[in-house]
């Protein structure tokens, strides 16, 4: 708890540093050492004004470049998840098992998309006030000793199985008194998720359609070429026009391909990552609910105990008339056992009180932290939406400008 506070304090002080991370140039590598398994290495370049990253030795404008593979990022993710349970750890792209089976793991399309997704992951971390300050991130982004560092880490990583089972046990319980704010957050995230998923699906279709349209134009282009050749000699003017038009169509087909590449490799990945990010946020909310459920259960137990005690004190509680009669017949001193019970209950109540207070603190703290995280999430989301929409607009503008240029030229050259 305090640890978290301290960390966030530190983050508050240091968050002015800029950090720009780019993941690029996926390269197929054959396995190091004896293992012959191939993997893909990504070039990760960091540009930051944080002096800690430069060890004071380098110029601030230097770009720090390291090469990492997917499993490295996975490790980073897991370590962060363990270290900062109250943070929304940005999700990594899926392992995509079927890609392995299809032997498509090293295709340009796959690695390009993944590299974009990994970049999203690292950028989200770098935007996060707490996560961006973690030393492991610095290690990951700068160190040449990462490989050895990783090997020592990987074997001794604590498992978080317990949490999983816990969460599973409580999967069907829900919070009794839900904060209105959270209800709203949940609703909003549901809606957002729904919309983004839909957009994702439609863009998938758009990409497919664009592909077939581009194909159409290639075919149309060849037919027009033939037509132009046929008309040559017969009507040279028309032949020339057809040729010009045909070139325009081919250009159109290229431009569609370019735009489509952007949509497929970048925009769709962004949407998918957004979906995952929303999912991570929901997980955090679930965890928060978990803490609250713990507190509520404890509270319930306490109220029960207090009520039992009160009943005993009042003389009626705890047992019914017949049991009292029986105990009376058996010669058991009711009064003594009652007093005994009451003292036991009082002990339990005081200890419960302490625990409850503790649980409440944890739950409240968690809730606060979660709200902060969600605010952070919203920031990242807003920034990403802005950025991706900006890129989308840019790409579209680029596309239409080139189109306009091409077709204006065609229009002018037509006789």
């Amino acid at each position, binding site marked *: 708890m305090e640890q978290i506070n301290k960390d966030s304090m530190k983050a508050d002080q240091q968050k002015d540093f800029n950090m720009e991370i780019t993941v690029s140039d996926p390269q197929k590598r054959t396995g190091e050492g004896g293992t012959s398994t191939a993997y893909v290495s990504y070039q990760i370049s960091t540009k930051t004004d944080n002096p800690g990253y430069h060890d004071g030795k380098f110029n601030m404008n230097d770009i720090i470049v390291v090469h990492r593979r997917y499993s490295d990022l996975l490790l980073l993710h897991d370590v962060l998840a363990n270290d900062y349970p109250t943070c929304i750890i940005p999700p990594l792209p899926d392992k995509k098992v079927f890609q392995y089976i299809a032997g498509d793991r090293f295709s340009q399309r796959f690695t390009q998309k993944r590299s974009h997704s990994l970049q999203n992951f690292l950028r989200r971390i770098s935007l996060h006030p707490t996560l961006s300050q973690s030393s492991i991130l610095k290690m990951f982004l700068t160190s040449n000793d990462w490989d050895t560092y990783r090997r020592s880490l990987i074997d001794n990583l604590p498992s978080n199985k317990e949490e999983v089972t816990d969460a599973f046990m409580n999967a069907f319980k829900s919070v009794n008194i839900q904060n209105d704010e959270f209800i709203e957050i949940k609703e909003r995230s549901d809606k957002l998720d729904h919309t983004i998923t839909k*957009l994702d699906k439609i863009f998938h279709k758009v990409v497919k359609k664009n592909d077939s349209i581009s194909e159409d134009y290639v075919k149309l282009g060849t037919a027009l070429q033939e037509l132009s050749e046929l*008309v040559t000699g017969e009507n040279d003017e028309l032949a020339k026009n057809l040729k010009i038009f045909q070139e325009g169509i081919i250009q159109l087909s290229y431009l569609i391909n370019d735009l489509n590449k952007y949509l497929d490799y970048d925009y769709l990945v962004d949407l998918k990552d957004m979906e995952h990010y929303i999912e991570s946020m929901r997980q955090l909310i679930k965890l928060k609910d978990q803490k609250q459920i713990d507190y509520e259960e404890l509270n319930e137990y306490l109220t029960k105990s207090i009520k039992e005690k009160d009943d005993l004190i009042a003389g009626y509680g705890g047992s019914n008339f017949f049991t009292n009669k029986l105990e009376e017949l058996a010669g058991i001193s009711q009064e003594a056992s009652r007093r005994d019970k009451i003292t036991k209950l009082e002990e339990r109540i005081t200890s419960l009180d302490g625990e409850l207070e503790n649980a409440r603190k944890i739950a409240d703290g968690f809730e606060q932290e979660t709200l902060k995280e969600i605010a952070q999430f919203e920031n990242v989301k807003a920034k990403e939406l802005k950025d991706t929409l900006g890129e989308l607009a840019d790409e579209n503008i680029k596309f239409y400008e080139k189109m306009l240029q091409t077709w204006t030229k065609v229009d002018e050259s037509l006789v």
Partner: protein
Amino acid sequence: MNNINIFENLNNNKIKNDNDEEEEEEEEDNNPFSGTNHMFASGMAGVPDIDTLSGTTELKPGYEYPSQQSAENNNNHKDTTLDNNDSPYSDDANLSTISSRTHSSSNSSDIDSHDFHSNSNVNSTSSNSQYEPYENLSLSVALAQQQNQENIMQDQKDWQIKIVESGNFNDQWGKHTIGYVIHYNDKEVIRRYSEFSSLHDLLVKFFPTIVVPPIPSKHSLMKYFLNPINAQYDTKVIEKRKRKFASFLNNCNNTPEIKSHIIFQKFLDPDFVWKDVIHSPPVTILPQNNLLAPPLNQVKPSPLHPLLPSPNTSNSPTNSQIMDSLKDNTELMNVAKEFIKIESLLSHYLAILQPIYNEVKHNKFHLSSLSGQFAELGAFYNALSIENLPFGKLSSCIEKVGRSYDIKYVSMEVLTEGIQNLLEENVEEIVKLLLDSRRVIVFKNMKLCQYQIVKITLQKRQNRLKELNEFEDKLNRLDMALNRDAVSSRTVATVVDNLKRKDYDNNKKNGNTNTNNNVESTNQPIESNNNSNEPDLEQIKLEQKHIQLQYQLQKKRKKINKYTSKLDSLGPEFLTKTERDLEGKRIAKEIEKLNECFKVIQRDIKEVNLSSMTSLANLLQHVQNKLDFMLHGIVKLILNYNLECLNAWKEAKSLINEM
């Protein structure tokens, strides 16, 4: 009105000329149709003749409609046409009055139905707007669409015929159908799909040498299957047909031959009920076989055309066959070469344009589904924008992106519609025209075939006649030689006597039996020749040889006769004099007829070649013009689309940058 009168007068004059010419021809010929002559006459009254002056297929300016006609005076028009009808039926006045009555009655019902239609039209237009996807357009997009329409309109600027509306109406039998209101010369007439279709079929029959503009194809069976009740009321299909019918009528109108044809004129004239038109001349007197009638005027009576051979259309000659057969006629050969060139060009066009048509159709489907996806994207971005309302600026940015997609969607719809109107429909029309051009080419080839058959037959007959005559000459020469020598040689004189006697015997025998039993008679001269030892030995030897030959051939002829019984398939030396004479006379007659036929077919060929060539060349020009027009139009469409989208995105981007 005056114009019409002039036109009608022209018609009448022409017809008179026609009649005169026909009569002249008929005097010369023994018209096999003399019994059915009135049928032609009645047809002729209705058909203004184009090719009265044989050979000249130039279009007479008098035949063109004066471009502007104010023809609101229907009565006058009707009267004159009825006058036309009257002349053939002059002795049967009742018929014409009946027909005039049906006309007037149908007129009133037409007007009724039109009234009904104009009411229903309000409905149809209002329901149309329901389907309009552009209800809440931004101004810019509305402008784009307008421009799009202008683009298409440009093509139709010179269109004189317009399809004003379409909608439900009840025909005179109370049947509920879809009608298309044709506006032409300030007159409106409603025609149905089936009527368009029958007009097209008729035009194809009337003009074997002219490429007839296509009409839209029938509803696919699939559509009926999917939506049996509403298929024919599909507004999109009706709109498409409206455009295509307008294009069809105007293309017809731009083809002078079709424009001046009475059937086409009647189609545009509200005074005529189409059902009556297709059940009266000239439709009813269309010949069964278009090869056996004057090629440029199928219903013009011609006694000679039915005598022409009718080659089987299924084995139309190939180009190389045609070239082979025309080796001896350089003029026709050159024309044929020209045809082959244009034909291969047209078929190449077809081979390229057909796949393009399919491609464009595919592309249209793809584009329209893409535009649907854009619409969805627009909707979901708007949803996203509403969800992000608390973020203020971001929300409006997202909204702008959504709007960009909305505009993309609408522009894409406009583009798709433009592609359909401009590219798909035009390419389809061209493909259909190219397909129809094959009909013209086949007809032309069949005509050539006909020409060839007549020519060869004529040659055969002429050869035969020559053969016969030559043989006769030879015999005459022989006779003369014999007679000359008989004066100086007794032996020869005896031979001549013998021959004469034999001839006499032969004639007698032939007169009785008329069989080919000449063996005895030919035996005798050989015997008699044995007596001769006189000087003109060579001559006699020659004769002897000849007679011996004849004897042998006579024997052969007996053998041949087992296989063939026709005399004219035998060499003239197998025939007796009477047979030769008979055949000679017969052949001379045949040749006379054949010569006439040959003249007819030669003229036909010239007409067909000229008319087909003009039509095909026009088609080629039309195709090229259309292609050029399409290119320009499409480029404009694409530019418009790009401009719209670019502006929308730039707007969105500037807002994003403000953040």
